[in-house]
């Protein structure tokens, strides 16, 4: 295959401007994008910087944007991604580039993973002989334990392009891994921390993380697991965003009482009187267009008592 690789080049230390440089490459049919990068470094420019290690999709080191989509360069076949004989290779988005295709993984991942306190905090002293866990005890977290921090889920995340502070699916998956570890005894404290701004409630649950994870961990579902656990333990938000807990409580209360959602009540109870000044113009706009859901004037759906019973049973069980 004769192709053109368009590769992101940027050396901030040298003060150069970012640019896509074109390189001709000649590769066998089964070649990967990483093969192409090695060839460019061998034949065209020994100064091209990129990361790679295992070369077989097992370490997550070579995460890049290939033709505008996050992928591992070592397992991405050139033949499958080339468009009109071209392959574009760039660093992941929304991150500080150190040089060319090498970016600041500390900023992308490690600082965020540190924020979720990725170590176990047992509630009791270590028993003699260590903690012995039946195999089944680790089953719920086994997949999450296989995460190798490639960062593809964060690369595909819908929130990070708008807010680089968001902890992101990789760190939240790590949080899931420790919260659900049977040896850990700090779930409440952890969930309180994860409930603060930049944590799990800032996730839009768009499922992009599931689509991007090469390990089948389904990080979006793991974030849902954390949220469900927080609800179960009554830690529905952090201290800096109490409106999140009020939102959940109001949503649940109206469905419990009437079978369906009272949207007017939800807005009022979520934001309270403190934001009445902001809510009123919105309410006025909606009222003028005949679409203001009036709070509390909300008829029960037929059979609402059965919905209430479902809530009762779940509460009783937990």
């Amino acid at each position: 295959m004769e192709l053109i690789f368009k590769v992101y080049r940027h050396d901030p230390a040298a003060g150069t401007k970012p640019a896509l440089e074109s390189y001709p490459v000649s590769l066998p049919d089964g070649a990967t994008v990483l093969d192409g990068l090695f060839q460019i470094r061998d034949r065209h420019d020994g100064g091209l910087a990129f990361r790679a290690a295992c070369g077989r999709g097992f370490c997550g080191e070579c995460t890049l944007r290939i033709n505008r989509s996050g992928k591992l360069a070592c397992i991405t076949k050139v033949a499958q991604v080339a468009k009109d004989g071209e392959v574009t290779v760039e660093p992941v988005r929304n991150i500080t580039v150190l040089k060319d295709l090498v970016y600041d993984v500390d900023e992308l991942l490690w600082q965020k993973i540190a924020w979720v306190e990725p170590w176990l905090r047992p509630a009791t002293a270590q028993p003699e002989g260590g903690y012995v866990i039946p195999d089944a005890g680790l089953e719920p977290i086994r997949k999450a334990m296989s995460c190798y921090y490639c960062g593809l889920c964060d690369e595909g995340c819908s929130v990070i392009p708008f807010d680089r502070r968001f902890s992101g699916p990789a760190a939240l998956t790590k949080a899931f891994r420790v919260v659900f570890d049977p040896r850990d005894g700090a779930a409440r404290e952890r969930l309180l921390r994860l409930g603060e701004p930049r944590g799990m409630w800032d996730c839009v649950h768009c499922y992009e993380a599931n689509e991007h994870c090469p390990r089948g961990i389904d990080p979006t579902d793991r974030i849902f697991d954390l949220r469900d656990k927080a609800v179960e333990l009554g830690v529905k938000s952090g201290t800096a965003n109490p409106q999140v807990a009020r939102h959940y409580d109001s949503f649940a209360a109206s469905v419990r009482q009437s079978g369906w959602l009272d949207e007017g009540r939800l807005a009022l109870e979520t934001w309270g009187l403190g934001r009445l000044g902001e809510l009123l113009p919105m309410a006025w706009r909606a009222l003028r267009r005949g679409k203001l859901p009036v709070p509390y004037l909300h008829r029960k759906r037929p059979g609402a008592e059965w919905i209430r019973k479902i809530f009762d049973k779940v509460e009783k069980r937990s």
Partner: protein
Amino acid sequence: MSYAFYPGCVSRGGCPELYPSAVKVAGRLGLGLEELTDVGCNGAGVLSRAVSDPINARTFAKAEARGLTQLMTICSTCTGVMGGANLRLKEDPAYRERINREFLAEERLAYQGSVDVKHLLWLLVEDYGLDRLRAEVRRPLKGLRVSPFYGCYIRRPDGILEGKPARKRYLEMVIEALGAEVTDFGGKGKCCGFPVLTANEPNSMAMVAAHTGEAKSKGAECMVTPCPLCHLNLDGGQPRAAKMKGTAIDLPILHLPQLIGLALGFSTEELHLKRHIVPTRPVAEKVSLLT
């Protein structure tokens, strides 16, 4: 074929223009809808699955009790949440049996796992057929430039596509079948920001501004969405998003049944186009020139 109709909460609450538009369109197309009136909110991704899975199993059991296996929604979020619950209940018979036993048996209900959850969009393309839809068009929306906006839950995760990757293009196919022009843009499959309107309003509004602004800059005269929650944010939140961005956007956002309804010949009044926050007058005026 008859469909169990699950209209959801928002189509009669925050977006009261959606329900009557959908019912009118379904009536004109001859879709046999049997509305499920005695079922609950599916949880919308807010309620924990411990609560919402039993509620959704109950909804499916209610449809089965009426002899219906096809359940139609008019909301991407309802589709995704109920579709996800349905997958869990279908793929794990032991889980389904536990839900039946613990939550539904007292009401003498049991979900057998036979229901398919389908958004109107999927139903139109897969069951009704675009050729039949084209044949029903009385007012081709010629020259109207429309950007599609899907909503996350109707595209992801992969399981929701049920092996039909073309579902990621159905909106464009319907827009073209109605005679309008597709104005494509990168944000069409992204998140509208509604899920974090409470937790992080600045992020939510930034998403609205980015997507509506991008579609507008590509030349769209309006945007169409199959999700009323996206509509709440993209339409209702647009004035705030524009203010935060510091530029006017003014992109009308139409519900899918409204766009179809316009092509079927319904008036803008019948489709309640005046109930939107961002004025739809430019669309109404253009459509009126087509009649």
